[in-house]
């Protein structure tokens, strides 16, 4: 019997047994967290909206405030992960701690239904960060603009859904390697942008912008024209600084669009868990989150130095008012690439930076697959939903449940300009799911005292107060603040009637599915209420 002693004076002896794995590499976890809080695909996409919507708010300050608050979410989720560490995530935590029905509704809405809306958002990001700049650089402004048309957006959404579907079908093994290379490649691309913005001055940027704007789009004196157009539209810019606090705080719910996801892919395996596991899980997510913050701040400071803060905001405001300069989304990396007057270089830079997208797109439906399979195994969905074809190893029915509604919603997204403004609905619904996980972590010591006592997370205290539930309280405060802002402030475009109906319909659908399953299974003699009922110990 091969055994292993842990510690200089042994405190634990392990014998040879299945599943005694070592902790995974924290670097991998950091990469996932950075890709999930993707400052390129989500961050700068969001700034196009956030800057013009809240012109008096300070973006950098709001990002730092958001990240500090999301750090508490990281602590809360680290606690959940090391206490109930399997890969089921919110579904498992909520069903175990809060109850089956609530757990299903929150998981189905937050990790399945709302991903139907994320699909066209991903698609639109692919359109504006790859196809539009590529076609523009190829010298086809009309082609570039086509990708912003209704049909263009729809086609790219379908391409995105197809890519995500293929990745689900092929599994993560190959994609995980690709994702890592995308991360490193994306960092190289970003480093090139940093160097370009660092070594060039403002005058050089203005000159390049005017030159390439004329060459590619036929716009004369484009830099001044942009500022003039924004001014004519009534947009006033404010210089970069640290205040005022009110509008800056109003930016926090908008920043959640990219900064709320460091916990997206966190898992933990292994049965001999200790304090080091908590630290490892926390370090991965926390470091990933703050790397994103640092990259974002570097980018924004360089924009202020070389591009011009007012100009950047003016560019975004024109897009916000649906009159984008050059007729395409103002991709700042495209304009940074213009500092080198070489089309081949510009194309390569766009392609390299698109790795931020391709390393991220694979996560679109992975969580949905897990929820669908878990719900099918719990007999809430028909057994067929978890079927995988023997020949091709493709989860055909779960793919249908993900891809078809996503394609339908992509059509609505593409062909309705108002629906496109409900982008933050996608964040809101997941935030509600997070809210209930945060509630779960707060009540965990009371609801499952034995589980909590056995968890490494219960060891960590500050002034006698366990930090994980306390972090859950701060997370609840953050998410409630976000929800109040989203529902009360028109500028986020989520509190109008159609948007509320859209989101409400998802919750109604989840409730209908669950209640129907309870009734149907009851008729079959199966009591779904038994699933999480605890067997008495004594």
């Amino acid at each position, binding site marked *: *019997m091969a*055994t292993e002693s842990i510690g200089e*004076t*042994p*405190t*634990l*002896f*392990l*014998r*040879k*047994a*299945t*599943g005694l*794995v*070592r*902790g*995974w*590499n924290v670097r*991998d976890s950091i*990469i*996932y967290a950075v890709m999930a809080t993707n400052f390129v695909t989500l961050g700068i996409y969001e700034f196009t909206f956030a800057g013009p919507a809240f012109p008096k708010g300070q973006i950098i300050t709001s990002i730092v405030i958001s990240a500090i608050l999301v750090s508490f979410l990281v602590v809360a989720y680290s606690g959940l992960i090391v206490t109930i560490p399997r*890969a089921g995530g919110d579904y498992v935590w909520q069903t*175990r701690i809060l109850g089956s029905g609530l757990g299903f509704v929150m998981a189905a809405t937050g990790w399945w239904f709302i991903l139907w809306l994320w699909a066209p958002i991903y698609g639109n990001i692919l359109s504006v960060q790859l196809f539009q700049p590529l076609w523009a650089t190829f010298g086809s402004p009309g082609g570039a603009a086509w990708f912003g048309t209704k049909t263009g957006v729809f086609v790219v959404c379908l391409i995105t859904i197809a890519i995500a579907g293929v990745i689900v079908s092929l599994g*993560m*093994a190959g994609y995980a*390697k690709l*994702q890592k290379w995308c991360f490193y490649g994306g960092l190289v691309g970003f480093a090139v942008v940093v160097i370009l913005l660092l070594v060039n001055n403002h005058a050089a940027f203005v000159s390049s912008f005017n030159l390439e704007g004329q060459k590619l789009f036929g716009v004369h004196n484009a830099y001044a024209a942009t500022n003039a157009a924004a001014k004519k539209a009534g947009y006033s810019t404010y210089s970069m600084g640290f205040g005022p606090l009110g509008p800056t705080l109003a930016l926090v719910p908008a920043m959640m669009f990219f900064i709320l996801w460091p916990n997206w*892919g966190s*898992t933990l*395996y292994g*049965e*001999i*868990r*200790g*304090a*080091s596991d908590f630290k490892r899980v926390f370090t991965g997510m926390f470091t990933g989150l703050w790397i994103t913050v640092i990259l974002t701040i570097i980018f924004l400071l360089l924009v202020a130095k070389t591009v011009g803060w007012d100009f950047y905001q003016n560019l975004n405001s024109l897009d916000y008012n649906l009159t984008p300069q050059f007729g395409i989304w103002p991709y700042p990396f495209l304009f940074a690439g213009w500092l080198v007057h070489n089309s081949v270089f510009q194309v390569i830079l766009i392609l390299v930076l698109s790795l931020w997208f391709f390393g991220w797109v694979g996560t679109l439906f992975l969580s949905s697959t897990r929820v669908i399979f878990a719900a*099918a*195994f*719990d*007999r809430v969905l028909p*057994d067929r939903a*978890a*079927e995988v074809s023997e020949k091709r190893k493709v989860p055909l029915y779960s793919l249908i449940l993900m891809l078809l509604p996503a394609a339908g919603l992509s059509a609505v997204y593409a062909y309705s300009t108002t629906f496109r403004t409900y982008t933050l609905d996608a964040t809101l619904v997941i935030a509600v799911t997070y809210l209930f996980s945060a509630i779960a972590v707060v009540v965990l010591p009371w609801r499952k005292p*034995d*589980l909590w006592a*056995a968890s*490494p997370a219960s*060891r960590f205290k500050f002034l006698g107060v366990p930090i994980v539930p306390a972090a859950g309280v701060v997370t609840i405060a953050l998410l409630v603040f976000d929800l109040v802002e989203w529902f009360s402030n028109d500028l986020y475009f989520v509190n109008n009637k159609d948007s509320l109906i859209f989101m409400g319909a998802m919750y109604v659908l989840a409730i209908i599915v669950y209640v129907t399953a309870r009734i149907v299974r009851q008729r*079959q*003699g*199966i009591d779904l209420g*038994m*699933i*999480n*009922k*605890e*067997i*008495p*110990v*004594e």
Partner: protein
Amino acid sequence: MRIFFATDIHGSEVCWRKFLNSAAFYKADLVVLGGDVTGKAMVPITEHTGYWQVTVRGETHRLETREELDAIVARIRNSGFYPAMVSPDELAELGADPAAVDRRFSTEMLSSLDRWLDMADGKLRGGEVPCILNGGNDDIFEIDDVLESSPCVSFAEGKLLDLDGFSLVSMGWTNPTPWDTYREAPEEQLAEKIESVARQVPDMGRAIFNFHAPPYGTGLDEAPALDETLRPLHGGAVMKPVGSTAVRDAILRHQPMLSVHGHIHESRGIKKMNRTLAINPGSVYGDGVLQGAVIDLDARKAKVTRYLLVNG
């Protein structure tokens, strides 16, 4: 007939207690524990003059009363670990001599199993509620005699048992793992072991395979992909099938009505393999939750009429 099937409790005393109560809780006629009964880790509790010292999950405790000691012992047992009372000298010896650790592990495992069987005797009314156990790849062979001699449980390892007209075939052996555990055999040998019992089944339409290893490539056998140092690859995000091809082939060839498995804790799920319903209820024994499957069989139609995976 209603069966409750659970597996892989790995020494967790709270899960064992729940298992003993599961027949009453789920109104089952029969309970089956599908292997890997024994724990994987041992926690030394050092006896000093006037106090005991123990480190649990990285936190060192100085215990000064018997009540404190009992509480921590219960906590260790509920986690699936074995508490081992040692003197400082014994601890030093264990630290220096792996063979001494092996011996102590065996002693603790067997004494724990004895205690568990005493508990079972009361709960199962001396065998009135049928309770079937078999080994798993992580179980040392010494447990076989202990289980075999128990009057309140049936040890099913490598046997064909008749359950009111249904045939239960049990096999705790698995295909090889990176940990080189006790009941492992290459696929060809495993296939022979399975066949030697399966060929005795009178009617496969009424057969239940209780094989610890799940069938390969069915989704019931997905474990984190590991590198050569047993570290999960890509942050644990990549899973790979690690089940047995011999088990898969046996199921597909014989088409029993039901096939229950364990071994891969992360792979809770259900798979229809032609006529056979294959189930792995998974295991989260470390959380003190007894995952299992409640399965109703229709004796007349010889089919599974209902099933539900539960987290008891």
